[in-house]
Structure formats: C-alpha cells, structure tokens
C-alpha cells in the first residue's frame, strides 16, 4: 500500500534517512501513521506534503527522535534512530527560541548543550547569524525581532550544529506571505550551498514544488505515501522565473488534482 510509486524514485543515489514500516498509534488509539515506508535521498530537499491529519509532522518528529514509533524503524545513514542525535537538527514551526536569551545565545544553544567552549561557539554563531542576514542583531532579544527574523534565528541555530540532516517542521507557516516568499528563495540558496539533506514538512503545494527536489505526497486515513514526485524544474533560472515556469505550474496543478478529494 505504501510504496514508492513515484516516477523515478530509484534515481536517488544515496539514502540519508530511511523509514521502514513505521506505525504510530498515540495513547488513546489515534493512528497517526500506518506501516509507512519512505526513503530520503542524501543532499536533497524532500518535502512531506499532505492535507492536515496525514501524519507528516508526526513522521518528522519520529525521525527527529522526539517521538517513539509504535513499530517499525527509522535509520539515519544506516544507523537506527533511538532518540535525538547529533547528525540531525530541527527547525520548529513556532521557532522555539528562548525569550530570555539573546539572538547569539539562541543560535549557539545547540553547541552550548554539546559543551563547546564559549569563544568557539560564539564565533560559529556569529558566522551563522551573518549568513542568515541578521548581522547586527546578535545581542537583541527574540521579542525585538519580526516573525521572519525569528525563524532565521531558528535556522541559524540548526545550521550552527552542522548536522547532516535538517528537519524542518512547517518552518514558514507562522510568517507572513511576503516574508515566506523571500524565505523560500533563500532556502534554495541554502540547499545549494550546504551539502545537507533537508526534510521539509509543509501543507502548501506551491511551497513544496518551489523548494523541493522531491515531494512525498502523503494521504490520510489510512496515512500512507501516495506518490513521490520529482518536479523537474531547472534550478539555474532566477527565483522569479521558477514561479512562472510551466513545469512548476503543471506540477502544482497535478498535485492539487490528486489532493482535492481528500480536503473536506
């Protein structure tokens, strides 16, 4: 039932994260995931796209090691996941910044928990803050920043620990539309520059098609992978051109046709 029926799912070179027959039943009997199997290719951005209730955030949290699976296994680089790990970093939907800590301490917090010396982690954080475009805001507090800037802090924190896999849980859903567009453009650059694997949960079809190399389309009741789509959009054209690209528009249309019957 849940198999890789995508057009060219076997073109992926190496697998960074593999999900094998994962089932998740919450206490109380709610079944969030049912025997799901899915591979995430290395060095690419894969979106988990689907209507609400399809278990995409649950799957991401299981991969992060924040939630235990009821059965099945998750492997990162071939090693089974038993909890959070150094090779994975999480970007939260609500940013999860500590309001009492400055931007630089928030960005360096992953390193602080790992016991990296203060001067070393501050240097790394400073660079990451500059890379996400927040230079000059190091000593501000989160409440002094706009929503979009806060999520840049969240992204910088994830990049600072230099994990191979970035898990992003609807990272742009809490920021306004214009900021989101800018973010999506910036994310394309980040994916290109960093040799990392990105797992990206979203409920926006346009966003998924715009930023992803491949999209895992999830459907609810029972929760399953219906299709793997690889939008063949040329990435050498400008960010604006992508949004007018026929392939982009057709892919969005095709996904919507598949999903509309599941949206009540």
């Amino acid at each position, binding site marked *: 039932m849940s198999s890789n029926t995508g057009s060219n799912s076997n073109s992926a070179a190496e697998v960074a994260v593999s999900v094998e027959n994962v089932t998740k039943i919450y206490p109380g009997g709610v079944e969030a995931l049912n025997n799901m199997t899915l591979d995430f290719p290395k060095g690419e951005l894969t979106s988990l796209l689907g209507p609400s209730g399809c278990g995409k955030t649950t799957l991401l*949290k299981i991969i*992060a*090691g*924040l939630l235990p699976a009821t059965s099945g296994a998750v492997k990162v680089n071939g090693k089974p996941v038993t*909890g*959070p*790990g*150094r090779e*994975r*970093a*999480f970007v*939260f*939907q*609500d940013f*999860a910044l*500590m*309001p*009492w*800590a400055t931007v630089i301490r928030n960005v360096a*917090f*992953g390193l*602080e*928990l*790992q016991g990296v010396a203060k001067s070393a982690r501050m240097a790394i954080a400073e660079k990451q803050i500059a890379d996400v475009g927040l230079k000059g805001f190091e000593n501000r*507090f*989160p*409440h*002094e920043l706009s929503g979009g800037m806060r999520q840049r802090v969240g992204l910088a*924190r994830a990049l600072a*620990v230099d994990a191979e896999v970035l898990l992003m849980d609807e990272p742009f859903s809490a920021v306004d539309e214009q900021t989101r567009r800018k973010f999506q453009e910036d994310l394309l650059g980040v994916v290109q520059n960093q040799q990392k694997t990105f797992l990206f949960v979203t409920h926006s079809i346009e966003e998924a098609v715009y930023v992803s190399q491949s999209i895992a389309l999830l459907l609810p009741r029972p929760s399953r992978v219906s299709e793997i789509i690889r939008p063949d959009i040329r990435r050498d054209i400008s960010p604006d051109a992508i949004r007018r690209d026929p392939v982009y528009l057709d892919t969005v249309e095709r996904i919507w046709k598949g999903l509309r019957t599941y949206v009540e």
Partner: protein
Amino acid sequence: MRDFFRHPLTLRIISVAIVFGAWEYAGRIPISPAFPTFLQTMSALWGMLADGSMAKVYPATFQPLFIGLIISSILGVGCGIFMGLNEGAEWFGAPVFIVLQSAPLAALIPLLTFAYGIGLTSKIMTVCIMAMPVIVLNAFNAIRHTPKSLIEMGESYLGSRRQVILKIILPSASPVIYAGLRLGAAMGFIGAVLAELLITPTGIGDLITYNQSIAEYDKMYAAIFSIMVFAVIFIEILEYSEYKFFRPDKRVKQ
C-alpha cells in the same frame, strides 16, 4: 509633555497621590474619630521614627518574618519545582497546598500556639503557612506550563535532562515563580503581623495593639503604614532581582 504624563513613574506618583488625597479628605470629614488624616498619620510616623520607638520594635517583627520568608521561599519553590517535574509528587503534594491556600489560616493559629507555644517558632510557622501555598502552587504551575516546543528543542539539540531543567525549564518558569514569591512575601508580611496580634504582642503588632488600646489612632495607623511600606520595598527588590538575574529580556522595552 504628553510623554511626561505617560511616564510610568508619573503615573505611579499620581496613583499614590490620589490614594493619599482621598485618605486625607476622608480623615477631615471625619468619617470616624478613630480614623486620622493622612498628614496626622505621617507626623505621628515621623515622631515615632525620631524618638526611636519604631526602630526599637522592628527587629522583633523582622526576625520571624525573614526566617519564615527564607524557609517558605526555599522550601516552597523547591516543592513546587519538584511537583512540576514529577507527577507522583504532584498527586501527593498538590491537594495539601490547594487546601492550605483556601483554608482560613488565622483559625489555625491557636492550634500552632497549642503545639509550638508562644515563642518564635509559632510566629515563623504562621509566616510559613501564610506564604508557602501561593509560592508552591505558582512554582508548580510555572514548571508545568513550560512551552512544549522549548523542551522538544532542548531534547532535539541533545540536552541532558539536567540541562533542559536548568537552561530551559527554570528560566522559562522564573517569571511565574517570582510572581508567586512576591505574593508569598506579601502574605508573609500579613502573617508576621497576624502572629503578633494573635499570639503575643511583640514588635510592630505590639505597637499597633498598644496604640489602639490607648486610642492613639494616628500612631496606630503610622505603624500599619510603616509595615506596608516595608512590604512594598521588599517586593520591589524581589522584582528587580528577577530582572537582573533571570530575565534580562524583560528590561528591554517590548
């Protein structure tokens, strides 16, 4: 000029001035022969400060008050944090403190006197039973309401349980813990005076009862006023220490 009228300090001074003005006016009507005006009370306060009668009694009040507040703060915050982190401790502890919080504690004082005599112990106990419940329950609720995503963040970035508690849960809970401490301190001041009124008249309680019995109402109100001033100052210091040590972000304008 508009900024001047909107400045927090201006507003505070205006608020205080209105209360004192109303007091002065009510005293001049007069609403009761036993109700002195604000200015009479202040001159009595000045007199008591000048002749040393106030300085003489305060040590007796502050001793049980501060011992009681220190015990309640440490024990109360400790219990609250423990209950917030440990569900077993919550089931065990929460009912006790919820009952204590709503119980008429003044009615328990004779029982304390019976058990611990009329000395310092009873007075410290009075301060504690007044101050502890609100401190414990606030600390407990503060810990319980740590945003879930912050805890998940700590765990996903490989924080140990200890790191998550010290670096995330406690700073996140500190505003509400401090709110509990401030309320607890106010209750403690009430407890200390209550103990002196109901157990044995010493310290400021003695000053209040004595002046009441000889109908020196301005002095009686001056004594009550002085303990309120101390309570306010103490609570302000607590607030300052919170901003300084735990929540530097609160000092930056929202």
